[in-house]
Every structure is written in structure tokens, then in C-alpha cells.
């Protein structure tokens, strides 16, 4: 682990996302809300599942269920407690924030070596192969709280950290030491019409997320790797739980 991680104290917060696979119907609202919030640009027509910049993908995983049922699995950056991408970055462009548990990506430091993409077992990082371009006039509709990343850098989900900063600013203005949890909700969670996504501080013992994290139906992708993701999944189907926790989902 990096020096940053080793010298950190235990996080004050441990922001965690819980995805209820029983509720997700693959509508794509989470992926769309994420792209709008984080100013992900439309790409050239030659972009594809391997070369496109997408922070949150919804995968349709055909299960072995004899009824032929699908399971949709939204996969953002898993926000690992032991993130492999932090160790391999030569530029310190990936940082683990010990106060929140959020693994942040700093595009201004990134030199585009893509070691982090190789190291990530969840395939949740994207490389900018093209300069960002929007149709004429559409740039006015971008979120001013998020910078535009340029060609040649890697990017990924950061749990909409700009919303956390806004919540902190609001709390500071009100003279409060900590944020109101209702003020910090990532865009994907806010958009989900099925309420399949829950977000909160797993260190809050009374919180919904802490309760769901202990639920026997909750699991982590590729649990055996020991990366300690802070994105948890729930399913009432033991086949889904077993397969996803063992093999994860292959991109592309």
C-alpha cells in the first residue's frame, strides 16, 4: 500500500454503495445520470465497449437459472479499501482518501501509462482516446462543478466527490462540523427509479448501509482477491451471489 494509505488513520467515514440486484431492471438511468453529472463527452462513432469512457456500466449477466432470467449488474469503480490501482500509479494520480474511503483519480497528474487499468480487476477504468468534443452549443449544459478531462488520461467513478465537497461547503457555511448525509448522494443513486442503489456511511452503525452490509444476501465482486470493495451487491439468488462473488463480470 502507498505511503498515503499506511500513514492514514481509520477513516472518519466509509462511504459505501449497496446495489440490490433484485431491483435493478437494467434501465440505464444510473449510467446516464453519472455521465451527465461528470461531463462525460459523446465519443466518435468508432468508440466501442473497450475504448469508450464510461464510469458506470450496466452488465446483463445471463445466469444459469433454468427459467432464463437475466440479472443486471451496475458496476462502477469498486472503491476498494486495498486498491491495486493506487500502488501501481507512478504519478500519484490515484489517491485513497482516509477520511472518506474514496479512491480519487486526479487527471492533472495522470500521464496515461494505464498501469492502473491493468491493475484493476473490475475493469472500471477508462482511458480517453479522443479529445472531448460536444455538439455546438451543448457545452453550456455541462456541470460546472466537474472539470473536462483531456485526451490521454485515465478516469473513473469517484462517488461524485464534487457533491461531497458541496455538502462540506454547505455544512461549513452553517457552522456544522460534519455534513448532513442527505446532502451527499451520488448521481446514480439519486436517479435510480427502482431504488436499487443505497448509499451512505458504513461507519454509521444506525445507517441503512451498515445494516445492508451485514445482510447475508450481500456480497462483493471477486471477494477472494481481498481488495475490500466498498461497492456491495445484494441478491436473493444464491447462484447469482456465488457466481458474481467468484468470477465478477467480464467487460466487452
Amino acid at each position, binding site marked *: 500500500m502507498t505511503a498515503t494509505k499506511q500513514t492514514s488513520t481509520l477513516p472518519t467515514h466509509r462511504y459505501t454503495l449497496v446495489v440490490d440486484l433484485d431491483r435493478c431492471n*437494467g434501465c440505464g438511468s444510473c449510467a446516464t445520470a453519472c455521465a451527465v453529472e461528470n461531463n462525460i463527452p*459523446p465519443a466518435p*462513432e468508432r*468508440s466501442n465497449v473497450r475504448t469508450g*469512457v*464510461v464510469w458506470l456500466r450496466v452488465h446483463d449477466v445471463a445466469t444459469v437459472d433454468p427459467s432464463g432470467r437475466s440479472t443486471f449488474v451496475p458496476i462502477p469503480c469498486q472503491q476498494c479499501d486495498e486498491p491495486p490501482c493506487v500502488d501501481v500509479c507512478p504519478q500519484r494520480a490515484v489517491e485513497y482518501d482516509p477520511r472518506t474511503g474514496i479512491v480519487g483519480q486526479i487527471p492533472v497528474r495522470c500521464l496515461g501509462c494505464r498501469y492502473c487499468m491493468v491493475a484493476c480487476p473490475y475493469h472500471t477504468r477508462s482511458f480517453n482516446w479522443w479529445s472531448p468534443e460536444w*455538439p455546438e452549443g451543448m457545452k453550456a449544459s455541462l456541470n*460546472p462543478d466537474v*472539470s473536462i478531462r483531456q485526451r*490521454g488520461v485515465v478516469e473513473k467513478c469517484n462517488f461524485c466527490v464534487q457533491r461531497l465537497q458541496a455538502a462540506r461547503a454547505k455544512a461549513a457555511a452553517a457552522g456544522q462540523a460534519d455534513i448532513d448525509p442527505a446532502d451527499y448522494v451520488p448521481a446514480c443513486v439519486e436517479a435510480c427509479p427502482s431504488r436499487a442503489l443505497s448509499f451512505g456511511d458504513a461507519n454509521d452503525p444506525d445507517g441503512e448501509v451498515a445494516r445492508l452490509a451485514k445482510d447475508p444476501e450481500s456480497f462483493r465482486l471477486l471477494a477472494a482477491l481481498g481488495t475490500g470493495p466498498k461497492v456491495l451487491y445484494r441478491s436473493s439468488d444464491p447462484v447469482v451471489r456465488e457466481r458474481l462473488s467468484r468470477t465478477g463480470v467480464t467487460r466487452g
Partner: protein
Amino acid sequence: MKLEVSRRDLLLAGTGAAAGIALSPVPWKALDDLSIWTQRPPTPTPRPAGPLAFRFTSCTLCPAACGLKARSFGPQPVGFSGVPGHPASDGGLCPLGLTAHHLAKHPLRAVAPERVSGGKREVVDRAAASAALSAAIAAAAKDPKRSLLVVDGRPGRSLSHAFRALAAATNGRYAVPGSPSPALDVLAARFDGPLSLGVDLSKARRVVSFGMPVLTDAGTPGLLARLRAEGRRKPKNERLEVVHVGATRTKSAGFADRFVPIAPGTEAALALGLAHVLLDEKLADAAFLAARTTGLAGLEALAARLAPPLVEQKTGVPAGDVVALARDLAASRPAVVLGGDPAEPLSAEADAAIAALNLLLGAPAGPLVARRAAPAAPDGDAKLAAVTPLDAVPERSVGLLLLDGTVPEGLVPWARLEKLLADGAVVASFSAFRAGLGEKATLLVPGPAPLEEAVEIDGPADAPLATFAFAPALLAPPKELVLPEELLREAAAAAGFELPASPAGRAAAIVAAKRGQLFDPSTATTTPVSSIADAAALETAFAAGACWVDDPAPAPAGRFALLRDEEAPRLLESALGAPGPEPVRVAALPRTALSAAPSSPLLTKLTRETALFPAPSAAKA
């Protein structure tokens, strides 16, 4: 010893040094350090002028009319979220709604009128567009073999009133896209009196869908997925489960608890086969049948012909599965059967068979609820055209096709309209985009893009409660834009038809009816309409994004006809004449959006780069 360095030695040493350096990290690190200077650093996103504010409206891209909370800087929205507690959407928002603010700047956006002349599309000025439309209206009024046909995607608006008045004045026709759930309309038509039905999914324990994508596109898929997931953790006999019956394994079918593949076009046979088992094993809701229906003998006689072995032969569903599904339906009441995809409706016979099945299950006493339409302003004395079904318009009889900008090609395919056109017909569209049906227009008079004008919008016709919003505009339309209603009135007047003024006062009608509640999106609270002082107060609330929702309607007294005498032979012929089992093509098909607007370029990208519309082979576990 004399040390001599030959040229060869120098070359070898140089080559070795070069290879050694190339294998070391030095040149690559140097290249990295250099290449970083060739890249532009991240740039701050421009902040639109104006203060940050949250504004509320309703999405007008499809009839669901979901609540929108817009984060705006001055007049420019930069992001949307749903409105928790909203009567139409309860906080949910689909990908189309989330990107609605991109559409005004869509690359396919048209601002100036365009005309196709000699196979080429050219921009014309407002006067030329008005003159062309006026000439086409005059010609259509004169020649009954080349008459006017208006297709209105969202009836009930001020523009719709002008359309109907023009159609009446020129002896033309006025059509609207089909119902979102024809099987429910067929069932409502079997009632003694006028009745409109909605679906309350929270009252159902079993939902059977004949081809309707209830879990992904039709109705309220987010709510159904939520209810079903909550049920999964309940005992089995209390769970809500979804069974999808269809010839194609759509995304909704794959997500259902059970998928029953059938041969294409055999829905009526399967529905009657299920009715056969319910009646034969006395599993139907006897109390409901006795108290609320007529014509049981006729249905029994018809269903008796569709024994499970014959149904297996026609549909490809094993006889044992037909019996098991019927028993499961009976044991899982309240149950409801829904039919038809709005984009791919079922046959009239299948709709009739599904209606009968719902009655056998007693669905009108459970998940199917009576609903009322939202109060409407009176039409006054104006002569208005009635709604004509598109199927009733003779082929090659239309000289002027007027397409409202809200008609989605997914519901009214161009192929269906094209065969109605006479030679050299004018196709005028008010679409804001050179896409969908707007692309087919020979005269495109672009209207405002979504969010650029205030729009009266009624909620979906199959929701359990009627909703209405006067969705305020969030964006200013381009200055050169011509409003469709203005241009239509001008062109009609030039052709000699003065259109009556559209009725104003939908708010007054709602206040006068003293029905329903007004939802305030900024506080997520509701106020009874009866406590609102006057129409002006209601209009002010609508301008701030409020939404009206009706009170539950009392269940009407009366009986449903299980089967009409004249229907039996047609139904039997349809069921018995159905094609035999064919290999069912199992494929996930991308669905056409039910919106008339094209997708945002961002959504196009996400569709291309993710598994939003996946092929089965694209995902691996």
C-alpha cells in the same frame, strides 16, 4: 598490446548501447515526461451565467410525464434529478429524461423551415413555409380524394384544438396514436356503461404480460421492479411475480420471473387455453363472475374447444405448462393479465381473449381500477373533428399529412403512414428535429424542442390515477423559431379557414371540478384542490412545476360481458387457425424509444459503449 578500435567495434558498441538504453526505463520515462507537455491539462467547465437555482417541471418526452428537478444556472439547466413523491414518477427518471436538456442543441435540431424540392432539402423563410402549407390546405379541402390527415401525438392541447378545427373545416381526418394498453380498452368496452381502467400494480400478486415490456419500458417499470424485489423477501405465497409470454425474449422477458416462449401470433390461443383450464377445474373467481359478469355460457362453450393439448399444438407451450400456469394464476390472485407492446400491438382477438381472462381472474375487483380522465375545458361551439383510427383511413387518400412534433415513429411507423399518401402528397411536420417522422417531411416547420415551451401534459392512460401538469418551459426557444400553432392559424386563414380560438381554462376546469390533489414538487406536499382559491392560484402553482393528481374513483356498479356473441366465431377462428409451432427466435432486441425526439448524443454513446441494450452473447459471468 596495441589497442585498436575499428569502425566495426564502434558500430557494435553504439548498437549495443542503443539497445541497452532502449531496454532500460530511461528513454520511456523521458518520453512520458515529454509527452505530458503535449497534452492539454484538464480545463475548468464554463459556468453558465446566472445564479444557481432549482426549478421544477414535468418531462414531456413521453406520456409518463415524470417530475423533473432541474439544477440551473440562470436559464440554463445543467442536470436533472427526479422528484421524490411525485404522483407520476416518485423520484424516478429514465435516461431520456435525464438528458432532455441536451436536445435543444442536438445536431439534428432544425430551427428554420425546410422544404424538399427536387429531392433536395432547402431552408426556406417563414413566408414561403406558410404559403406552401396554405396551398396544401386549400388543395386538400377541395379534393376529397386527396384530403387532410392530422396525426396528433398528444391530444388535449391548445394546438390539438386547432388541428381538430382544421380537420373539421376541410373535411379531413384527425388521428392519434394507439392506446398504450388496448387489452384494457377492450375490457372497459365490455362494461355496461362508460369506464376507463388503470392498473394498480401494488394490488397484484401475479402479473402476466403478453408481450408487453412491463419491466423495462411499458407502464411504470421502475415501480414494478421495486414491488417485485420487495416481494422476493416475503413468503412465497405473498410475493409479486411477473410472467412474460411472448415470441421474443426481450429484455423485459429476460428479467421476468418466468418467460413462456410461444409461437408468433398465438396469444389468443394461449389465453383461451388458460381460460379453459380455469373453467374446467373451477378455478375462476366464481363470486366475481356471478356478481359482475354476463355471458359465462358463451365463454365456456368457446374455451371448451381449446383444451391444453390443442393449445400445445398451436402455441408450442407444453400442455402441462398451460395447466400449471392457469393453476398458478388462480392460486396467486389478485392477478392481472396485460397485453401488447405499444409499439407492437396484439391482434384484436388476442386483446379480447386477454380481457376475458382478466374477468375470470376477477382482476377488476383487484389490480384493475376504475379511473377518471382529468377535467378538460369545454370545447365550446367550435366544430371539431372526431378521432379517426388510423386503420380506418383509406390507402392513397391523403393529399396533406400534418404530423405533430410529438408523434413517435415507434408508435406510428412511417410505413403505416406512407401507404395512406396519394401521389405527390405533402407531408408537413412540426417536429423540432430532422429525425424520426420529421425526417420524412417534405415541409418541415420546426417547433420548440423539449423544455422550450410550456406544455399541457396528461399522464399515461393506464395509470391508476389521472395526472395533469402544465409543464413550464426551462429554456428560451431560438428567436427565429415559429410556433406551430401560430403558423397553422396563419396558413389556414390564408387558405380561407379561420380557426376558432382554443379554449383556455384547464386550470379553471380543475378548480371547478373540486377533485384531486395538487402536488408541490419543491416541498413534496399535496394540497386538496378544493382548498385552492381560484384558477389563477392553480395556474401560478402549475408555472412552478406543480402536478395535479386525481382522487381514487369509486368502483362503478354494473357488469362486464365476458364475451359478445358476434365475437365467438372470430375468436375461435383466430385461436384454431393460428400457425403451428415454429422455432422461437431468442434474441434481445433494442427497443425504439416512445419519444418523438432523438436521443441525446450522450445517450447514443452510452448505448454503443455499454450493455444498455445487450445482445445475450455480449455479457459473460
